[in-house]
């Protein structure tokens, strides 16, 4: 034989064909297939498939002919039975819509939470970037540990030099984020934009869906500045006009021609970006400084990021001669290159919160499964008689189990679909909430998510479906028949399984409630913590002073003061300052030992360390750090023999416990028995700040003045500084002005990390806030499901006890007695669950401990409050059926069966 017939078609045929002739037909067809192929007939493959399809009808007829007397147990027959069972199961589910809807909603919520979190994990962590051959895309960044800078972007100079000399790279591009004002028709709009050089989009491997991409021509300064717009802007502003290319659009007060529209879904670097402008860089700007351009590269096939990094690192020394940068400066700064897969640029440190969340929603799913299992048990009780009759009539246990498992599978499937819907809504909500998660805009439901949903719902089905099904099918025949026919109140033993399930739900719910309440408090405190400095309207930029151009302390100090003066000339800037480092940059602070005159030191302990920071006089005003006592810096504070320093309150408290810090003398690093280079007199005390970590203790800082008078007296002023400008609103809008002001002093200065203090603060609390939000959501679902579970169980028990209640009332029980009896039953289960939940919550809280801020993981108030909340919900869930029981008409109760 030349080739086998299409395998799938053969497989199908085998299932379709009437078994009596199956083998002959298959063999004949195979022979025919070979013959046709050998004869060179066209499309034999297609012919075989057509044959398969055409076989369906005659086969069914043949089966109908043969059904009664032959081959009762082939594949399709069992399929028939299966479909009959499935139909029956579906019909039974439809007959009890209350049960079905409750179970499906419960599962949908539980599965939805899990699928949603998985969707996030999938989209953020697992999924490759949506560009062709994304594994070849890398980001290029610099590092300069010698200047205290762990990360900075590339500069025009380094980029040009690298691309001219690197061999392992196929193409590379640059991008700079830029806000632009859109004016002209309609309301002026502030748009997020990006300027890119002409190789940027081709490097990603994406071109416009309409029009053309940028060319080398567009990069030149003397050509008009055209624009490529995003799909979204095209839709909003131009109504998706297919002839939009060539239209003019006014950006930054200049009319620009639209040359292209990006495809739908293109979202680099983020979804909000709606215009792409050409990056026009004058020849004079191709220099070493200006580390703010985001560089990406597409590696040649087979090249690893490490190899590329090694190649670029080897090129660093040659940057010196290329741009007149002293080799010593490159060495001092320890300029290096970081090449990372582009995907990693979009990921921050989000693994821990995602893990915690995954665990949390896992618990939610457990609760949901317990809930559905319970519903199943309740329902199964009502079907004891049916089961017993079926068994008595000869149904096998296996067959009966199949029936129940099928119901569970149907519910699981529906729950899974519902879960996908819930997840879709949830993920949309997270996206619309504006949480700045990395790659959040690329998160969507894909095949992998659907697979996860399918597996999760299958596992849940096993959890909630199999146990009740087994239990039911095994049930003792006689007992079931007898039990039901008597219509007595169910025995305690029968309630035990249900009570256990409800108790477990309440325990899990309490655990999640406590966990999320702790996180919520922590997050709230963190968000409302007063760091001791202003967080609004502050723009910062890091500047590096090359040692070649600023060889002496005087030069550096002069620059500190000049740059402040220059920045203060920007119209929007209210005040400006410069300092050796910024708040919330742990690792950058200059920690050192502080010695105080007259303080007795224990020789056996290390001297206490504080941060020594160099600031210009306006630092405290600009950041809004209050002067508590004494005075601020005056121009003579750096003069010889008159050096003054300001200290934070915590230093005053710790080093001068008697309260006489003002006028005290202190120095850095040199023990008291040696002569220090310089004594500093405490001139003033300023407010404490949370400088290193918002969740930490106030930081002890000693501030040195950076003043021109007596600059020679300063022993070491760092040549890396941060310029801080307080603006009158929308700080980031003035980034460009700030950059130009700095460059007006020295066009060669590297500037990195132009950011607002608000962004820095925001970033340091992002993880906690995101985790908190989702935990609260999960706890809310848990609370809801726990309540529903208890309500369902108690309702059922009440309905089963209707007759008993009727008897009790007929015998003189008051309505209140009946209600109380039911309430007691509910609260017993609730209290039991709460007890277990307390222990579980304590265990969970230990895991959360590292994420908590100013909240004890064993905070009794939280535990009691959450237990009370849960108890309240439990009571409410019990109260409704209890009231129903109390309103029962005794006669109706007696008649009930």
């Amino acid at each position, binding site marked *: 034989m030349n080739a086998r017939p299409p395998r799938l078609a053969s497989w199908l045929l085998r299932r379709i064909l009437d078994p009596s*002739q199956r083998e002959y037909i298959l063999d004949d067809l195979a022979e025919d297939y070979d013959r046709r192929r050998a004869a060179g007939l066209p499309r034999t493959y297609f012919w075989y498939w057509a044959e398969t399809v055409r*076989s369906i009808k005659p086969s069914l007829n*043949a089966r109908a*002919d043969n059904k009664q007397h032959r081959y009762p147990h082939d594949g399709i027959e069992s399929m028939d039975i299966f479909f009959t069972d499935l139909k029956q199961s579906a019909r039974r589910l439809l007959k009890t819509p209350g049960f079905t809807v409750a179970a499906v909603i419960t599962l949908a919520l539980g599965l939805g939470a899990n699928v949603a979190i998985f969707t996030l994990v999938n989209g953020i962590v697992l999924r490759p970037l949506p560009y062709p051959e994304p594994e070849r895309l890398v980001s290029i960044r610099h590092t300069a540990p010698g200047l205290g800078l762990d990360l900075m972007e590339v500069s025009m100079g380094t980029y040009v030099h690298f691309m001219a000399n690197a061999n392992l790279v196929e193409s590379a591009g640059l991008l700079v984020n830029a806000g632009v004002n859109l004016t002209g028709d309609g309301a002026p709009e502030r748009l997020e934009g990006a300027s890119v050089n002409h190789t940027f989009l081709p490097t990603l491997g994406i071109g416009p869906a309409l029009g053309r991409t940028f060319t080398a021509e567009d990069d030149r300064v003397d050509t008009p500045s055209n624009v490529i717009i995003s799909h979204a802007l095209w839709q909003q502003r131009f109504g998706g006009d297919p002839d939009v290319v060539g239209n003019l659009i006014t950006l930054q007060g200049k009319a620009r021609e639209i040359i292209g529209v990006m495809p739908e879904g293109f979202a680099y670097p983020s979804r909000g970006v709606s215009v792409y402008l050409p990056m026009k860089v004058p020849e004079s700007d191709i220099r070493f400084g200006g580390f703010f351009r985001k560089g990406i590269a597409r590696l040649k096939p087979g090249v690893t990021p490490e190899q590329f990094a090694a190649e670029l690192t080897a090129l660093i020394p040659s940057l010196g001669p290329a741009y007149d940068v002293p080799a010593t400066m490159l060495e001092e700064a320890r300029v290096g290159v970081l090449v990372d897969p582009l995907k990693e640029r979009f990921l921050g440190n989000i693994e821990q919160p995602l893990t915690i969340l995954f665990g949390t929603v896992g618990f939610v799913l457990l609760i949901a499964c317990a809930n559905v299992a319970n519903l199943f048990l309740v329902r199964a009780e009502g079907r004891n008689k049916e089961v017993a009759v079926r068994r008595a009539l000869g149904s096998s246990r296996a067959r009966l189990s199949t029936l129940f498992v099928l119901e569970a599978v149907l519910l699981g499937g529906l729950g899974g679909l519902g879960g996908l819907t819930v997840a879709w809504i949830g993920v949309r909500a997270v996206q619309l909430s504006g949480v700045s998660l990395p790659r959040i805009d690329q998160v969507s439901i894909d095949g992998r998510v659907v697979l996860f949903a399918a597996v999760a719902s299958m596992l849940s089905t096993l959890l909630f479906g199999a146990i009740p099904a087994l239990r039911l099918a095994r049930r003792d025949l006689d007992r079931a028949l007898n039990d039901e026919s008597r219509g007595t109140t169910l025995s305690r033993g029968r309630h035990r399984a249900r009570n256990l399930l409800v108790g477990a739900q309440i325990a899990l719910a309490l655990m999640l409630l406590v966990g999320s309440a702790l996180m919520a408090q922590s997050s709230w405190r963190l968000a409302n913590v007063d760091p001791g400095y202003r967080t609004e309207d502050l723009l910062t930029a890091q500047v590096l002073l090359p040692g070649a151009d600023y060889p002496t302390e005087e030069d550096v100090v002069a620059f500190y003061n000049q740059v402040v003066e220059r920045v203060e000339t920007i119209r929007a800037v209210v005040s400006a300052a410069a300092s050796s480092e910024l708040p919330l940059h742990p690792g950058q602070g200059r920690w050192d030992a502080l010695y105080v005159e007259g303080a007795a030191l224990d020789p056996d302990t290390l001297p206490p360390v504080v941060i020594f920071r160099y600031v210009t006089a306006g630092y405290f005003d600009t950041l809004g750090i209050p002067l508590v006592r004494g005075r601020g810096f005056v121009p003579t504070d750096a003069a010889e023999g008159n050096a003054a320093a300001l200290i934070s309150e915590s230093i005053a408290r710790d080093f001068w416990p008697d309260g006489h810090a003002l006028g005290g003398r202190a120095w850095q690093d040199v023990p008291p028995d040696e002569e220090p280079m310089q004594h500093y007199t405490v001139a003033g005390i300023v407010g404490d700040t949370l400088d290193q970590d918002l969740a930490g203790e106030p930081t002890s800082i000693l501030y040195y003045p950076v003043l021109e008078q007596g600059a020679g007296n300063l022993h070491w002023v760092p040549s890396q500084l941060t310029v801080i400008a307080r603006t009158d609103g929308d700080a980031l809008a003035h980034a460009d002005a700030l950059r130009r002001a700095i460059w007006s002093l020295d066009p060669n200065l590297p500037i990195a990390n132009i950011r607002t203090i608000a962004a820095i603060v925001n970033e340091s609390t992002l993880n906690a806030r995101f985790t908190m939000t989702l935990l609260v959501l999960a706890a809310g679902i848990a609370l809801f499901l726990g309540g529903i579970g208890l309500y369902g169980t108690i309702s059922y028990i009440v309905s089963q006890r209707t007759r008993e209640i009727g008897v009790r009332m007929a015998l003189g029980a008051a309505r209140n007695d009946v209600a109380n009896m039911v309430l007691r039953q509910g609260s017993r289960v609730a209290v039991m669950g709460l007890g277990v939940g307390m222990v579980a919550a304590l265990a969970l809280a230990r895991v959360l401990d590292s994420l908590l801020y100013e909240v004890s993981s064993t905070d009794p108030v939280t535990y009691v409050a959450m237990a009370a909340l849960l108890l309240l919900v439990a009571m409410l869930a019990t109260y409704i059926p209890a009231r129903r029981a109390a309103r029962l008409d005794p006669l109706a109760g007696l008649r009930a069966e």
Partner: protein
Amino acid sequence: MTRSTALNDVEQFVLLALLRLGEDAYGVPIRAEIEGRGRRAVSMAAVYAALDRMQRGGLIEAQLSEPLPERGGRARKHFRLRPAGTRALEDARGAMDRMWDGVDLPTDAEAR
């Protein structure tokens, strides 16, 4: 057991194919004959359904060939007419002839 119901279309085609093919009548050539000579598209499953029905009706009988290497060591199932089959064909043909007797198909122009 013989059948009282008349042969249907496919059955007639299959029986005629069996007569034409003689000793060589098994699935592949039967179907080829019907498709080639009868210009009638028919699936193998339909051929076998007819064969099966007629075998149960006693019109034809089946015989397995020797195991054949080109079929992976499996046999072909050959069919041939039994007298009842011949009679059924005769009946069918007679019925058809009687129905055709004296019928003149209208020409195209008249039909319009």
